[in-house]
């Protein structure tokens, strides 16, 4: 699952962009977004695209591994562009797909260089604590469930329950498999519910630190963001 791969790279990376603070990287991502969404022609998308690809290459992430992640935004962008064909208003199909892919690319760039708990800590400045905790729990639960479903699916396949061609049979058998997974997960969380009741709520469960201080690594996304902002405006 790509979330596991992205998380692993974000936490394990040691490039200058990884060491930059979350605020400066979010600033750069927001300016990239602005540049992409304001673009009214494919030519105007070239600068944000070049910056994003350049930064990603400097972060030493293999670009080819991103292509499967970019397939979905390209697909949905194409579907929605198809829906707009024949209407006077709205972007051309190529521009629509380009914008969808590039915005996804910008966010992936942020996620590949910043551990998700740090992004959630920043979101804590604007979202209520309950929502931030819900995001943190979802993120944590996903990895626990992924490990559980991996083992469950292995057992299921070893016992002959799964076939790539038998869509309907897979579906009939997937129900109880998911039921077991949901049941075990909910039961294992019951004890944690009591812990939270004792602990009380109101504070973030994940990382609380928003301000990490600025270092020389922050110049890199900040300067790129400022240059792009000047060009856009």
């Amino acid at each position, binding site marked *: 699952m790509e*979330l596991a791969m992205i998380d692993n790279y974000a936490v394990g990376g040691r490039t200058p962009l990884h060491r930059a603070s979350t605020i400066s990287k979010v600033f750069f991502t927001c300016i990239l*977004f602005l540049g992409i*969404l304001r673009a009214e022609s494919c030519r105007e998308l070239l600068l944000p695209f070049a910056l994003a690809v350049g930064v990603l290459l400097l972060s030493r992430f293999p670009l080819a591994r991103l292509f499967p*992640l*970019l397939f*979905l*935004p390209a*697909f*949905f*962008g194409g*579907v*929605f562009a*198809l829906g*707009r*064909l*024949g*209407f006077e*208003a*709205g*972007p051309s199909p190529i*521009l629509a797909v380009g914008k*969808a892919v590039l*915005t*996804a690319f910008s*966010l*992936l760039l*942020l*996620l590949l260089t910043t551990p*998700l708990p740090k*992004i959630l800590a920043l979101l804590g400045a604007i979202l209520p604590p*309950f*929502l931030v905790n*819900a*995001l*943190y*729990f*979802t993120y*944590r*639960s*996903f990895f*626990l*469930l992924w490990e559980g*479903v991996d083992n469950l699916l292995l057992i299921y396949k070893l016992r002959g329950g799964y076939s790539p*061609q038998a869509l309907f049979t*897979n*579906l*009939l058998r*997937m*129900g109880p498999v*998911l*039921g077991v*997974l*949901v049941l075990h997960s*909910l039961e294992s*969380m*019951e004890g944690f*519910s009591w812990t*939270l009741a004792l602990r*009380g*709520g109101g504070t973030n469960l994940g990382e609380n630190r928003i301000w990490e201080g600025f270092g020389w690594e922050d110049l890199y996304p900040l300067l790129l963001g400022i240059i792009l902002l000047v060009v856009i405006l």
Partner: protein
Amino acid sequence: MFLLTHLHIPDGVIPSFWLVAGFVLTGVILALALYKTRGEEAICSLPRLGVMAGVMLLVMSLPLGFLPVHLNMSVLAGIILGPWLAFIAAFTVNTLLALVGHGGITALGLNSLIIGLEAILGSYIFRGLSRRVAIIPAAAGATAIALLVSLTLLVGLMTVIHIDPLLLVEHHHGEETEEEIATLLEPKGYHIHASGSGEGGNTPWGYFLSLILPLGLLGAALEATAVALVVAFLAKVRPDFLLGRQPGERS
């Protein structure tokens, strides 16, 4: 892979007015959900919310055989968590999906609205149906109805985004003729005749609908089956997990 019952709206294809409206509406419903679930019980429900949101994220990663399609489980979240926590779960799932490019970040409001309303509707319909029929048909019926409503919402959204809302504000009530009303309501560039029929049954919009609607109906059927099977299993083993009850709470 894509979700048959709805499309993850990407960035850059929807006009800003509708994106802002999506965020405002989602914000209002989120505020209501947080108000309804405030207090110590809400804190204790966090792990269950996280698990169900994690399940939603997980099933979106599991393909159903050779077809590049996946389930959703928003209605299952509504049945287990209750309507308001399920809406919050839908929002968290969409936020995390948007961060990995599965749906746009600017369209987060609209995407959350569609999936969240599925969960809320599914929860209420299940509650109503389970008092009248057995668990399996209640779960299947609730899922099918909720998903069909959300598909209708999506198609409706894709229609109205072509209408300039400022035109609707500028017209004067009672003074326009039927033709003027038709002109105001027609999507830009798509001509509606006075009889109400659209021009050209084979427009790209028509192709779009003819592609999405059958897939949506198939998706609703598959999802209804899967949710009914999961709910049937839980009803046998741990019925206290259904209908947003706290563990150990009896009906």
